[in-house]
Every structure is written in structure tokens, then in C-alpha cells.
């Protein structure tokens, strides 16, 4: 099986690579693009597990409102719908930016990245306003176990989006300054994976936190 051979490439290559030398090992090793992206994929999966821990905490504490407001008193589904639309479309434009980078098309890449940034900023603005309004109403993270878990979970996602936007700007600047070098293209691929994963996590959050919170 070719995949198994790739996984065991360093050990296997040394075993029978004596006759052919280093070229044999190179032939069996994965390209740097695959190795880097796979490593980053493993990181993203561990990040998903971190979110799962926050989500498990939230799920356990949803009813622990300590007499304070519950989800259905606080969530504004219209705002959540706009946030969802922002992230969904930004996932699309981020994918287009990745394709533009592959084709070494500067205009497609820079415009798609700029649109992605604007949509990410809109998402964060709405989320921060939501947080500010809740805290103003006296429903801050210290009000109840439910609200602590809510702010930790949604805030963790918001922090990830913030980090993603900083990364996005860095990639735009690096492409402008250094062009489409192989290492830059690898970073753009990793950024793409990161941004799409954040969108996947948001799907879980808007469905199981906001929508279930309002429906139940």
C-alpha cells in the first residue's frame, strides 16, 4: 500500500536504500508540501479537540444558569445568521485566494484575501457587540456557570478568528514582498486549512449553542 510506504518512509528507506543511496530515500519520502500540510493538519485536529473540551464544558453547564438569563433570553438569531453568512462566504473567498496563489495570479489572490479579511472583521465586530450588550445587561461571564462556559467557548473561537486575520495580513504582505515562493505557497495552504477549520467549528457552534439554545 503506497500510503503505508509513505508513512514508514524514513525507516523503510534506510532498510533497503543501501544500494541506491540517498536518492532512493528521497524517492520514497513525501514532498515538503505534503509533510508541512500534514503536520499542520495534525495541529488542527488537536485544536478541534481543544474546542471539544470547551464544548463539553458548555454542554454540561447549559442548565446551570444560577437563576440568571438562559440562552433563549440572550441570543439574537438574526445577528448569528449574519455572522454565519460572513464566515461561510469568507471560507469561499479564502479558497479562491488559495487557487489564485496556486495559479500565481496576484490580483485574484490579493482581492480574495482582502474580501476574506473584511468578512472576518465583520464577523468579529458583530461578536464583540453581542458580548458588550450581554455584559451591559448584567449577563457577563461571572453571572453563572452557563455564561462562563459560553464566553469561554465563543471567545476561544473569536480569538482564533483574530489570530487568523493577523495571519491573513501577514500572507498578503509576504506575497507582495517575496512573491510566490514554495515556502510562501505552503504557508498559504496552511492558512487555508486553518480558516476552513474555523468555519467548521463555527458550524458546530451556531447549530448546537445558538440554535439549540433558542429552540429548547
Amino acid at each position, binding site marked *: *500500500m*503506497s*500510503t503505508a510506504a*509513505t*508513512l514508514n518512509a524514513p525507516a523503510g528507506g534506510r532498510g533497503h536504500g543501501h544500494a541506491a543511496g540517498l536518492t532512493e530515500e528521497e*524517492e520514497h519520502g*513525501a*514532498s515538503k*508540501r*505534503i509533510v508541512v*500540510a*500534514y503536520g*499542520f*493538519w*495534525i495541529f488542527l*485536529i488537536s485544536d*478541534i*479537540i481543544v474546542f*471539544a*473540551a470547551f*464544548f*463539553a464544558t458548555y*454542554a*454540561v453547564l447549559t442548565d446551570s444558569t444560577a437563576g440568571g438569563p438562559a440562552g433563549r433570553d440572550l441570543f439574537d*438569531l438574526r445577528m448569528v*445568521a449574519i455572522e*454565519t*453568512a460572513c464566515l*461561510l*462566504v469568507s*471560507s*469561499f473567498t479564502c*479558497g*479562491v485566494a*488559495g*487557487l*489564485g496563489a*496556486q*495559479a*500565481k*495570479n496576484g490580483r*485574484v489572490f490579493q482581492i480574495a484575501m482582502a474580501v476574506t479579511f473584511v468578512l472576518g472583521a465583520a464577523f468579529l465586530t458583530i461578536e464583540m457587540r453581542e458580548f458588550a450588550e450581554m455584559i451591559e445587561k448584567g449577563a457577563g461571564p461571572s453571572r453563572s456557570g452557563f455564561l462562563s462556559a459560553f464566553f469561554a467557548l465563543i471567545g476561544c473561537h473569536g480569538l482564533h478568528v483574530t489570530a487568523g486575520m493577523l495571519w491573513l495580513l501577514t500572507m498578503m504582505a509576504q506575497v507582495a514582498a517575496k512573491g510566490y515562493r*514554495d515556502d510562501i*505557497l505552503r504557508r498559504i*495552504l496552511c492558512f*487555508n*486549512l486553518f480558516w*476552513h477549520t474555523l*468555519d*467548521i467549528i463555527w*458550524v*458546530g457552534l*451556531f*447549530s*448546537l449553542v445558538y*440554535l*439549540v439554545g*433558542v*429552540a*429548547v
Partner: protein
Amino acid sequence: MSAAHPESESRLGDIAPGDEKTSDDIGRGVRGYLIGLVLATGLSIVSFYIARSTLVWAPSIPIALSVLAIAQMGVHLVFFLHMTSGPDNVNNLLALAFGLLIVMLLVFGSLWIMTHMNHNMMPMDKIMRMQR
């Protein structure tokens, strides 16, 4: 697939997570993302709609929403992250499968244990009375 080493990678039979086999053609790539966007938007709209309508029997709404969320995550994985069941994607898929196992253990394990604990706990007012 990297444009720099197309030959070495096709011989290897593995692709990087997020990469697509035929992404050299930008038009085809965009079409894939568009299909994903349309499917994901449709599923989101259905989720938002059934959350507030009486279309679905009320006690089953959380389960319906979970199913829709999982379906949408699948759409994202296939059309945005280009996870396929092909042999060149086995490594990426296995890593994901292990991650999902841990996620399920974490979430359902926590819920299971905590609901049983809440069930077996003495009601709060009774505890308060005993402390007096």
C-alpha cells in the same frame, strides 16, 4: 497539488490535506468551492428555519439540528478541505478519524457522567437544610 513538483507527487500517490488533485485549473477549483458554498448555505438556512418553526416535532429539534450540523461539516470537509475517500487521502482521513474518536469520547463521556451525577445528587435545598 504543487505546481513545483507535479511529477514526484503523482508518483508518490499522496496529497496534502487541503490540496486537490485537479486544482491546476482555476475554473474547476472555483466551481468546486461554489458547489460547497451552495450546499453549506442551504443546510444553514434549513437549520435556522427549523429551529424556530413548528415543522419538526419540538423535542426532536436538537437532534435534527445536530444531524444538519454534521452534514454541513461533511460538506465543508469535502468541498473546502478536499477530504476524499481516495487512497491518496488515507493519512489525512485517519488523522481526522482519530480526532473524531477523541472528540466523541470527550463530549459524550462528559455529558454521560455529569447527567448521572446530577441525577444522583441530593437536591440543593435539601443540602442547605442539612447544613443548618
